[in-house]
């Protein structure tokens, strides 16, 4: 890493020094020749060449970024729809990189190739209907394909149908933490409203209406457990300001809006344990632990406590600015096999038990 920084700084210093010598040179010897402050052939020449060099910089920096930072990207999707989103994402990304490579090349090559000379005469060209038609119609066709593919997925992701198979979970947001509510044995979430939050001396964490019998068996927890392979329909609520429930590993995100209920649904397809075992996640965790180990060495040297080693867990993050501790509003998500999930949920306290 340090080498990179030094490398970058060196390049910048080199450019600066070279430019400064240029000024020096010009101010020393060329005073009488040209102080018009208008580009002359010499300026055109070296700035044109620098334009071409800049193309090299863009390419190298792109390659470097993928090579050095490619492994920080999110691992494979842990939800079924996410796999398809990823495919479309990488198709779009490939298209973008292709167009970027070509257009930047042409732009910077022309800037270099046609850099001005006293003897050169520009080609008087005002229009070319055929060319313009081509580069209107090609983006239009490509976009039509992208729009079609995107809308097809969007519709299938957002078309949420209630069904008996699905698990319904309410994700509840407040400054600055998350809670989750399961429907319990009856499979129906009880009515809830912020007006009930003060009932039962604050034990009613998400404001369940205790007069609604459906609510009594609801289960409120601080850690989100999901069964693998079963559709989960999320209901989102917020009690104070806008939050956004962002579950990047599942390619899922939805805002939590006070006074309104929002929905999202996905089917997890990798348990936490399975995700930990994937090669990309093992590599990432190893890298993170190396960074943490190095940091701990320094902390210990200063007489402070070492950092705990890191173990991967799925995350629910807040992704809509919500105040001072927005950056630390998180909940752990655990995806497990159906039987483990059933066992876990049977051990949780119901709302009726909590308020007794």
């Amino acid at each position, binding site marked *: 890493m340090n080498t990179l920084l030094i490398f970058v700084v060196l390049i910048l210093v080199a450019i600066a020094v070279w430019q400064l010598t*240029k000024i020096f040179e010009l101010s020393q010897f060329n005073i009488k020749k040209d102080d018009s402050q208008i580009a002359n052939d010499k300026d055109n020449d070296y700035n044109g060449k620098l334009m071409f060099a800049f193309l090299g910089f863009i390419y190298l920096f792109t390659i470097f970024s993928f090579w050095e930072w490619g492994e920080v990207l999110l691992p494979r999707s842990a939800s079924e729809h996410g796999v398809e989103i990823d495919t479309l994402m990488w198709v779009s990304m490939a298209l973008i990189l292709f167009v970027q490579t070509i257009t930047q090349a042409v732009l910077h090559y022309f*800037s270099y190739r046609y850099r001005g000379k006293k003897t050169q005469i520009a080609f008087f060209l005002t*229009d070319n209907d055929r060319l313009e038609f081509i580069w209107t119609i090609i983006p239009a066709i490509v976009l039509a394909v992208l729009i079609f593919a995107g809308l097809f997925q969007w519709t299938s992701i957002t078309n949420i149908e209630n069904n008996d198979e699905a698990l319904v979970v309410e994700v509840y947001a407040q400054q600055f933490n998350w809670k989750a509510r399961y429907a319990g044995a009856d499979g129906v979430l009880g009515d809830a409203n912020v007006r009930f939050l003060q009932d039962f001396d604050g034990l009613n964490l998400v404001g369940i209406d205790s007069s609604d019998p459906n609510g009594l068996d609801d289960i409120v927890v601080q850690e989100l457990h999901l069964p693998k392979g079963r559709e989960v329909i999320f209901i989102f609520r917020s009690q104070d*300001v806008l939050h956004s429930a962002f579950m990047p590993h599942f390619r899922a995100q939805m805002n939590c809006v*006070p006074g309104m209920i929002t929905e999202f649904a996905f089917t997890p397809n990798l348990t936490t344990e399975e995700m930990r075992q994937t090669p990309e996640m093992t590599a990432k965790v190893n890298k993170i632990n190396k960074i943490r180990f190095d940091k701990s060495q320094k902390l210990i040297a200063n007489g402070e406590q070492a950092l705990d080693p890191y173990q991967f867990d799925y995350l629910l993050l807040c992704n809509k600015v919500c105040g001072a501790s927005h950056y630390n509003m998180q909940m752990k998500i655990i995806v497990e096999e159906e039987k483990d999930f059933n066992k876990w949920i049977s051990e949780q306290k119901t709302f009726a038990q909590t308020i007794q």
Partner: protein
Amino acid sequence: MVENHTHHKETFITKYIFSQDHKMISKQYLITGLLMGIVGIGMSLVFRMQLAWPEKPFGFFESFLGKWAPDGVMDPNVYLALITIHGTIMVFFVLTAGLSGTFSNLLIPLQIGARDMASGFLNMLSYWLFFLSSVVMIASLFVESGPAAAGWTVYPPLSALPQAQPGSGLGMTLWLVSMAIFVASSLLASLNYIVTVINLRTKGMSMTRLPLTIWAFFVTAIIGVISFPVLLSAALLLIMDRSFGTSFFLSDIFIQGEVLHYQGGSPVLYEHLFWFLGHPEVYIVLLPALGITSEVLATNSRKPIFGYRAMVASILAIAFLSTIVWGHHMFISGMNPFLGSVFTFTTLLIAIPSAVKAFNYITTLWKGNLQMNTAMLFSIGLVSTFITGGLTGLILGDSALDINVHDTYFVVAHFHLVMGISALYGLFAGVYHWFPKMFGRMMNKNLGYIHFWITAVCAYGIFFPMHFTGMAGLPRRYYSNTAFPYFDDLADINIVITIFALTAGAAQIVFLYNFINSIFYGKKAVQNPWKSNTLEWTAPVKHIHGNWIGEIPTVHRWAYDYSKPGHKDDFIPQNIPLFKGEEELQH
């Protein structure tokens, strides 16, 4: 012979302060915009340092943030305030007023051949309202509870409830007041621009002979008139909710142990109102920069702009589409998914006129005789960042793909490249190109080259890596990522970004030095230094009221007769009559 009928006796106050001359007002806009830019960019450097070295105390943080940075470690509320004010200042005060205000004012009368704006008084009023709103915005930085801190979009309920964060107290009131004044200023200015372009064109200056700069400013003003009032309504409704107990945007809220009385409102309504301005605002910022680029590229390529009609058509298409795409900021806001589909469709359509513009710029360079003046470098740079930033819009505009990159650093990278850096490049290109017109002197070209090359490298250095942190799942507006060990491997990238940012900041000092120094000591400019065709270069170097001595020039041709075959010079100004046997191009 000097025609003196517009020349009143001038005092210091009427000449430099309450001036009604568009050239002076343009300088006032530029200098106010640059001062606000120093504040806005300076803030970004401070919060970039926080992001790169989150636990490290910086002594100077404490010295100027005081109790907000005890022992040199920044408070999270301050971080949010900095990003909020950075965004507000850069979008509205620098890239709307600073860019559009400066160059619309300078160029509209000069390039269409008018003595001044349609209403000099309204023009002056619009500047002073802008100045007032800047003062209110800066004043909000010194409030006890801190300035607005809910992000530049100031979504309620966070921005509506002082209990939710300290920045939503008096700081937010001042923010809203400042924006309301700003909208008034912007409307006065825009109406003036529209009326001037429609009514005060000189003889022969048909709409199809207008330089593309004027087309861009004209259409920008129209978008502004359509969309800014909606922001004003959003701000007013928010003020009502905050101070008069209404519930436009609020409902069912429990905060700080208390159930509030608000019933029936919806924050999503605010989002619609805000983005109905917010998205056109992107083009209000960008179109003037593209207009400037069209002019600078053609002049310095010594070639006509390629596809004039297509360029005008794409400006109009972008303007029309820009008003029906705002929902792409709200795919996951909880609005009906069907609306998401509609907005995906309209959003991706915008890529077509944008692509046409990019291709036409590139073709303008083809077989040109490129004069690498500083303005030219910034214009080429603009095309480059416009492409890089614009392409990732294909991902963000696609609702299905947006789900997972929404509000991450991927978005930060996208909009900074496509509208932030591009518009800033347009501003710089405009300043370097029209500096001789504004101040009668030349800027130093070598300092200009240093400024451009360092900025160009750093712009990519700052924003390209952010695509990666975004695709790693890192949300924007996080005070630090240390709360998530999962993001520990992004610490290195953050340091790289910050080093590039600090270097870029240093390069802007070169620009400021060059700018100020050249105002006083720059080489005296000749009348038409860039050998340009447009009318402003037919006016004398020394500014006079009414712009031209004697008659206003008459226009005989379009603005892009560069290197026309059969002529000795490689440029023919618009006021030169057609030569014997010369045919005008049909546009």
